[in-house]
Every structure is written in structure tokens, then in C-alpha cells.
């Protein structure tokens, strides 16, 4: 998806793109996190994400994907290890300073109040305002330009709550752009979207990465990693089990192991006239429904004698 060119930056924020000093955008090293005394959620996770990368985090529920994102956003304080943003320890950055570097795009946002799409997008300017200050006409203009860039300027005065899921996601991306952060953190950005909006949203995300943003996102769809990401990280039980280019990491073997269902990853050749001819996608391998259920439910007798396992 082609986006209109980025508006001129005049607010002195770090523009997306590689750090002149060469530091990676996100550098997580030896990160551990636990809730309370026992609830281990992350164990010794190390990960770096560079500018112009889309890093997709894959893994079953409870693997620690969201916990990792929340550590990168500075919401959670690691029990051990460090998170560095462009080489700077995250704890040493003031909240406003951090907000100028890392933008958060949630699954959806819900407010009972009728904020307009432009209201939401303007909020991206908050880290650049004094604590007592409100957005100026210039901030509104900047936010409107970002809506325009994503092709949704006509929605500016519509109520955010009344927009479709896909439009809302684009508004939240526009807010992240108004925030002018080099790092975009997306938590299952397409979980609530239909197929068309899912594709549109992720194409915008991939385009933003090509412009130099570093993107880290969680997803439940391995094909998202294969189609839109240039980096895939597999997680299970709070630990990284694979990290690399999606073509190397998102394999049938890995996915079958990760999710406990047999999966096949296959190449697809697009018809001529498209930039990228060869693409890979994943399909589940059909199995008998009984074998796919694991562990077996009590009423499925394995011995074939007609009695339930509980009765044996």
C-alpha cells in the first residue's frame, strides 16, 4: 500500500530511521519478569529489533508475548535484565521522553465518550506538550495530516466509537504517527478485524516499517509473520525458542511443535506483475478430528470396548 509522503518534521523529535550511532531501536537482554513470587512470565529473553524491521511475536496463549511488549513499553519493570531503547536504558527515560520514542497501538480502545477520530489522533501530540498545556491548532493540523496520510482524513470529525474496526485501527496508527515515535508496539492489531481490514492494516504497518520505523507486534496468525514481517520470534512458556527471518523460523516443524497441531508451510507463486513473486503461507494438515484433540476427552474410548476411560 502506497502512503503519501511523511509530512515535514519540525518538532525536533527523533525521526524514524536508523540511529546515526548505530544502536538498535530495541535491545532486550537477559529479561526476566515474574508476577508476585511464583508467577514466572518471562525467563532470560534477549532480542534486538532494528529500524525498518517488522518483528512478529508468535506463540500460544500465555507464552509471554504481551508481557514482553509491556516491558518494552515500560509498563512493567523487569525482575532481571534490561530493555534499551536506542541504547538507552528504559528506566532512565522520563515517561514523556519514552513516549516520544515508543508508540503503542492497542487492539482497540474504548471510551464511553464520543471522541472524534481527530481528537484521538491529536492525543499523539501529548508527549510534546507541557504538563499544563493543551494541543494547539498546529498540533491539530499535524494530526489531521497523519489521518490524511493513511487516507482517512474524511473521518476526522466522525465519532471514533462509530467507526469500523479497520478505520479505528488506522486512527490509532495515525495517533502513533502523530507521536513521531521511531518504535511502534502493536498488540494483536488485527484481532477484531475482518479479512479486508486485516490486510489493509498490516500493509500500512509494513509500509511504515519500510519508511524506517521499528515495529514489534504480537499475532496469532503465523501467516502474518510470513507475509508482512521480516523477523519472527517464537515464544513458549516465557522463553524464546526461535528468532530469525520468518522463512527460516516459521516452518511447519516449528509451528507444529509450538501450537501442538500439525501445520504445513508452503510456497505460493503470485501471478506475474507483482513485486514479490514467491510467498509462503501456512495451512493446517487435516487429521482425524479425534486425533487432533489432545489430550483425549474422557468419553473418547481408546480401547474400543465401548466403555469410557473413567469406567475402566
Amino acid at each position, binding site marked *: 500500500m502506497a502512503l*503519501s509522503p511523511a*509530512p*515535514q518534521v*519540525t518538532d525536533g523529535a527523533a525521526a524514524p530511521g536508523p540511529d546515526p550511532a548505530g544502536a538498535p531501536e530495541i535491545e532486550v537482554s537477559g529479561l526476566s519478569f515474574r508476577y508476585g513470587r511464583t508467577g514466572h512470565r518471562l525467563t532470560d529473553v534477549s532480542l534486538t529489533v532494528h529500524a525498518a524491521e517488522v518483528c512478529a511475536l508468535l506463540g500460544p496463549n500465555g507464552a509471554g508475548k504481551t508481557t514482553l511488549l509491556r516491558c518494552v*513499553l*515500560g*509498563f512493567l519493570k523487569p525482575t532481571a535484565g534490561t530493555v534499551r531503547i536506542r541504547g538507552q536504558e528504559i528506566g532512565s527515560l*522520563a*515517561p*514523556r*521522553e*519514552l*513516549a*516520544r520514542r*515508543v*508508540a*503503542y497501538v*492497542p487492539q482497540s*480502545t*474504548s*471510551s*464511553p*465518550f*464520543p*471522541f*472524534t477520530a*481527530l*481528537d*484521538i489522533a491529536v*492525543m*499523539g501530540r*501529548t*508527549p510534546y*506538550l507541557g*504538563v*499544563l*498545556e*493543551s*494541543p494547539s*491548532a*498546529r498540533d*491539530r*493540523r*499535524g494530526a*489531521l*495530516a497523519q489521518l*490524511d*496520510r493513511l487516507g482517512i*482524513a474524511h473521518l*476526522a*470529525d466522525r465519532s471514533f*466509537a462509530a467507526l469500523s474496526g479497520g478505520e479505528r485501527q488506522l486512527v490509532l496508527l495515525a495517533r502513533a504517527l502523530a*507521536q513521531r515515535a521511531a518504535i511502534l*508496539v502493536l498488540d494483536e492489531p488485527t484481532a477484531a478485524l475482518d479479512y479486508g481490514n486485516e490486510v489493509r492494516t498490516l500493509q500500512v504497518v509494513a509500509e511504515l516499517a519500510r519508511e524506517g520505523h521499528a515495529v514489534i507486534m504480537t499475532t496469532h496468525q503465523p501467516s502474518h509473520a510470513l507475509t508482512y514481517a521480516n523477523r519472527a520470534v517464537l515464544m513458549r512458556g516465557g522463553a524464546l525458542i526461535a528468532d530469525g527471518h520468518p522463512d527460516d523460523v516459521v516452518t511447519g516443524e516449528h509451528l507444529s511443535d509450538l501450537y501442538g497441531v500439525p501445520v504445513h508451510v508452503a510456497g505460493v507463486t503470485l501471478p506475474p506483475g507483482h513485486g514479490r513473486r514467491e510467498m509462503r503461507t501456512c495451512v493446517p494438515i487435516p487429521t482425524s478430528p479425534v486425533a487432533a484433540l489432545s489430550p483425549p476427552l474422557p468419553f473418547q474410548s481408546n480401547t474400543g470396548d465401548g466403555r469410557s476411560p473413567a469406567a475402566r
Partner: protein
Amino acid sequence: MPVADPVPGASRRLAERVRAGVADNLRVVLLAVVLLALVVISFGLGRYSLGPLTVLRVLGHELFGIGEPVSGQNRAVVMDIRMPRILAALLVGTALASSGAAYQTMFRNPLVSPEILGVAAGAGFGASVSILLHLDTTALQIISFGCGLLAAVLALTIARFVGRGSLIILVLGGIIIGAMFNALISSAQYFANPETTLPEITFWLFGSLGRASMHGLIVPVVIVGVCLIALTSVRWQLTVLATGDDEARSLGVNRTRIWALTIGASTLMTATAVSVAGIIGWVGLVVPHLARFFAGPSFNRLLPVSALIGASYLLAVDDVARTATSMDLPLGILTALIGAPFFVGLLAKAGRQWL
């Protein structure tokens, strides 16, 4: 400073927005004009009625030194009898509506009212005890204000130690503390003398502006003024907070600080309003909705518009309370009778969005 248009399409939209902004400001000005007209009319209403020109002549001479002195009786009616009551109506209406708007925005819940932390029940208990002990009006105001604050502090303590700062536990804590203080109010009424103090307590709890005096309003005006300034200063941060905790945090908003400031200012204003006028419900719940209808949900506009509408509304209702019959009608009963059906209308219109 002229800035080059980033996108041509945006400039036309911006022009529309600027026009819309002017329209928004016009609405605020219009509301202010309505309020001023209402004030002048209110000075004229009552057993001894005065024309608007007479009122303006008295106010012009007494407040600004313009024109000739006005006859003793007209002056006394305007300045001594009606002035404190009208000022009290403006103050209480502003305080209740502003704190309601702040709480609704902060709790992200359109059904929240300023009494949410048990402040009104606490202040009511303080007033009841003061009446039982035959204390004077100043002491009553101070004790009721203190008990209102105490109720909020107890609710906050519950939230802090039981709910670890959760907003839902805070609301539940407020309900618990409110119920407890209501029980204490009932016991004060039970022990009151049915001939003297019981009717006094009951009438106080109904809410009235009849007790207002000029010297008794000085401290309340200062408190409400400071609280309004505090809320104004965090207006945008509070607006961002209304979209969600995580998002506000990712935008660099210091949630704890904004919460503390909003709860502090709203509690002080509510306790002040109750200590001046007794328990006047529904204003803080309904007026912010009306204001949102006029000005949108952004707290930047919601606060001034809520304050203006709240002041106008309570002034108009108090005019009815003191002129409809030969005796003062209880204000709290009137606001409930007007507020409840109005709220049903709001529910019918927006109910599905709120759930």
C-alpha cells in the same frame, strides 16, 4: 506563524475546523450570556419583585460605582437578601457540575456523580451531628466539610489497601462508606428531638440555599476557585486519560498524579458544596451530559461548559424553589424530580453506548 501545509487536503479541513472552533467558542459565550441574564432576572424575582433595569442600577452602583445611589429598600433586597443566595447557587452549581464532569472523565464512566466517594453522606453526617449539638452555622459548615473529606479519605484508604489502587474498588469503597455514613445520619435523626432538631436535620438534608450568608461564602469561593484552577491545569492530561490507562501511559501521562489531583479537587469542591447547601443530588450527574452534548467530551471544553450550565441550572431551580410557593421548597427534591426523568431520556438516547 505561517506554516506550509503538509497536505493540500488538510488545509481545507483545517479551515472547516477553525470555523467549527469559532462556533464552539460562540456557544460558550452564548452560555455565559444566558447565565448573566438569568442572574439579573433572579435578582428581580421574589416576594418583592424588581425590574431588570432596577436590578442593573443597584448592581451598577454598588459593585462598580456607576450611576446614582438607589433607594434603601431596593438596595437591601438586591444586596443583602438576594445576593448571598444567588452567589451560593452559582457557587454550588459550578462546584457540583465541575466535580461531576471531572469524575466522569477520570472514571471513564458516564454514570458517576460527585457523591461517588461517599462525600455527600459524610458531610450530611457532620451537619446532622452539628445540629444535634446546637452548633452555629460556621461550625456546622466546618464540621460537615471535614466529615465529607473524611468519608473520601476512608474510601481511598479502602481502595489503597484492599484494591491496590483499582478504580472499581474505589467506587465500591465509596458506596460502602456512603452507606455507613447514611446509617450514622439515620442514627443522628433517631436520637434527635422530634420537636426541634429532627426537622432541622431533615430540612438540611433536603438541601437549601436559604442559609447562605456573604461572610460564610468567602472561604467556599476560595476553595472552589483553587480547585477549578487545578482542574483547568490538567484538562488535557485528564482528557487523554479518558481513553484508557495503558494508552495514556504510553503517551507519557502520569496517571497517579492526575488521579490524585482530580480526586482531591473534586472531593474538596463537593464537600464545600454540601457544607454550604446540604445534599443536592443529580446536578453533578446530569449537567456534564448536557455539557458534553454542547461541547464534546474533551475536558478542555467540558469543564468551563459544565461550570456555566451547572451555575445556570442551579440558579434557575433555586428561583423556582423560592418563588413557586409561599415557602421555600427543598432544592434537593426539585433537582431529583427534574434530573431523574431527564436522565431516563439520556439513557434512551445513549444507553447502549455506555454499557
